[in-house]
């Protein structure tokens, strides 16, 4: 068996404290198109069940995939299904339209940060305000986590998915493990 490449978080996964884990790879598809064009939004809705969010930094769920708002004309579709079949389905539904559909599954590694200490660990890793008064389940944000560009999605009251570039993933994983460490000291 090949050795685990040093750059992947798997190499340090056993040092991760409770509340932090790397999720198995998920299908991620980048979708671009005009949200004011109903032919585009209707076709996406028919194909995936997702009503694309046009409010910045919101997510929307569909049948198999969910959409994360990335910019006024760009979304990240994430799910446990197959990226290739989603791309095919969208390309067929959107043929002839001025859109872009790209499989970017390998682009980002996803960490799940959960539990009672997820908020403070995240807050000390970023300059973005993750306080529940401004950031709630169903919200997503693109910001810096430990100086690395990341998408953070809140999936539950105290659960977050953190999408980081794969090449930064070991660093961010190690950072988050360190950030959580102080809370796992036995009381």
């Amino acid at each position, binding site marked *: 068996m090949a050795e685990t490449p040093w750059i992947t978080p798997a190499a340090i996964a056993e040092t991760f404290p409770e509340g932090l884990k790397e999720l198995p790879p998920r299908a991620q598809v980048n979708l671009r198109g005009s949200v004011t064009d109903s032919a585009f939004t209707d076709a996406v809705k028919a194909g995936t069940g997702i009503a694309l969010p046009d409010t*910045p*930094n919101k997510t929307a769920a569909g049948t198999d995939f969910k959409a994360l708002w*990335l*910019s*006024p004309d760009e979304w990240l579709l994430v799910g446990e299904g197959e990226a290739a079949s989603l791309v095919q389905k969208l390309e067929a539904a959107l043929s002839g339209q001025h859109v872009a559909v790209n499989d970017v599954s390998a682009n980002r590694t996803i960490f799940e940060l959960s539990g009672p200490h997820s908020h403070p660990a995240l807050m000390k890793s970023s*300059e*973005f305000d993750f306080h529940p008064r401004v950031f709630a389940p169903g919200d997503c*944000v*693109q*910001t*810096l986590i430990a*100086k690395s*560009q990341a998408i953070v999605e809140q999936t539950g009251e105290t659960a977050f998915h953190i999408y980081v570039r794969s090449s930064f993933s070991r660093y961010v994983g190690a950072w988050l493990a360190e950030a959580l460490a102080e809370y796992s000291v036995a009381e």
Partner: protein
Amino acid sequence: MLNIDCPWCGKRHETEFRYGGEAHIARPEDPAKLDDAEWAEFLFMRTNTKGYFAERWLHSHGCRRWFNVIRHTVTHEIVGSYKMGEKPPKLPKSAGGAK
């Protein structure tokens, strides 16, 4: 550090942004008709404003959109931000956050 108001994402920390220099510099309609001095004027010459200044910013770690900000170059006071193609916000009457 500045808190910059992205027209899409709202107030964010300066570290998420890239600076883009002076705003509202229109590219000449027909660059081939300019002589070297005029082209250099368009390309390099910028005002060195002391006071309120319209400048471009890119939300590079967020939504990756360019937009304009009116900032006071001495006090860093930010009057407002607006999307490309929109009218700038009204400037305060004072010379700007005299300190």
